[in-house]
């Protein structure tokens, strides 16, 4: 028997077996490195879908939302979501150019610890307590109740917007990230907000 003619199939089999044996090591080496590191922040409606967001608000009525965070930073992250409420004339976080948070004080901080490539989501229930002032025509807020925590809105008001025929309110959720090297929270340049019409 001439063994030389079996050389190619023999070495092909040897190479395939060798690749199979090397596959655990190759699977670690031949992986494209992650190049994009970011966080996601989202707000969903009461059914966990991007629909049916509360808009027309009545005083004392409860409304539901879902707030979620996705972590693609490459490490387990410590986030704080600062909850703020503003009217049309108050400071808003910016979406373009220099990304800055609203200068308003946080009403409540929601903490979240999210594993790398993990997501985190909680249901939120909120209600507003407010009354109407006739002169000048405006809504005067007294409190926002968020997941059972009563947050004072004393001194906050929203004037009647005749153009849009509404009393405007904006519930803002800003994402802040704990920086381990400086040991401070930094604005993570992401926010979601819910624009509301305070009905009377």
């Amino acid at each position, binding site marked *: *028997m*001439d*063994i*030389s003619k079996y*050389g190619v199939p*023999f*070495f092909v*089999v*040897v*190479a395939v*077996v*060798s*690749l199979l*044996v*090397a*596959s*655990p*090591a190759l699977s*670690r080496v031949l992986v494209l490195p992650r190049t994009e590191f970011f966080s996601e922040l989202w707000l969903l409606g009461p059914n966990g879908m991007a629909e049916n967001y509360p808009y027309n608000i009545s005083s004392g009525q409860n409304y539901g939302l879902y707030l979620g965070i996705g972590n693609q930073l490459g*490490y*387990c992250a*410590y986030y704080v979501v600062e909850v703020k409420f503003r009217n049309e004339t108050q400071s808003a976080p910016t979406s373009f150019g220099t990304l800055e948070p609203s200068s308003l004080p946080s009403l*409540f*901080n*929601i*903490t*979240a*610890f*999210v*594993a*790398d490539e*993990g997501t*985190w989501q909680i249901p939120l229930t909120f209600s507003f307590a407010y009354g109407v002032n006739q002169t000048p025509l405006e809504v005067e807020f007294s409190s926002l109740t968020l997941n059972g*925590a009563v*947050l*004072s809105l004393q001194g906050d008001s929203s004037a009647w917007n005749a153009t849009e025929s509404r009393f405007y309110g904006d519930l803002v959720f800003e994402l802040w990230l*704990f920086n*381990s090297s400086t*040991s401070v929270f930094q604005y993570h340049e992401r926010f979601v907000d819910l624009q509301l019409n305070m009905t009377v």
Partner: protein
Amino acid sequence: MKFVFVVLVLCALLWSASFVAVCHGVSEADAASAVANADQTVIGCYQSAANAEQAGANVSALLVTLDDAGLLLSEAHLALLNGSFDSASALAGQCVAMLEGFNGTADGLKSSALQAGFVDFWVNIVGSAVGAVAVLVGGFLVWRFLKGKKSVKAGAV
């Protein structure tokens, strides 16, 4: 007579009051200090969890505990802001108590993960690389042996 009776009753009341434990409210400074302590505890525990995760440990159970502690911490901050110092101090205390033993657990997970990583490195990376080379060399040697056998046979003929 009536006056003496009233005085005696008042004295008795004052004397009995000395048996009642004095109840102090928590001051703003104490509450702020308790909340700051809870803040630092949460940060320390987060860093332990992050280190464990970096070593390859599954830290999902640790993160659930941290989330619960974080909620208490948020409520403590809110209570402090609203001037409910007793409540703020109590919530901060609960937060710290919840994280008792957390660093030990995180360190344990980190050690296990490092050990598992070491075994994984030797078995899956070094072992499989060496195995692959051994298969190639073995294949070559087998081929040489078979070819040699054939040559000997040819020579004998």
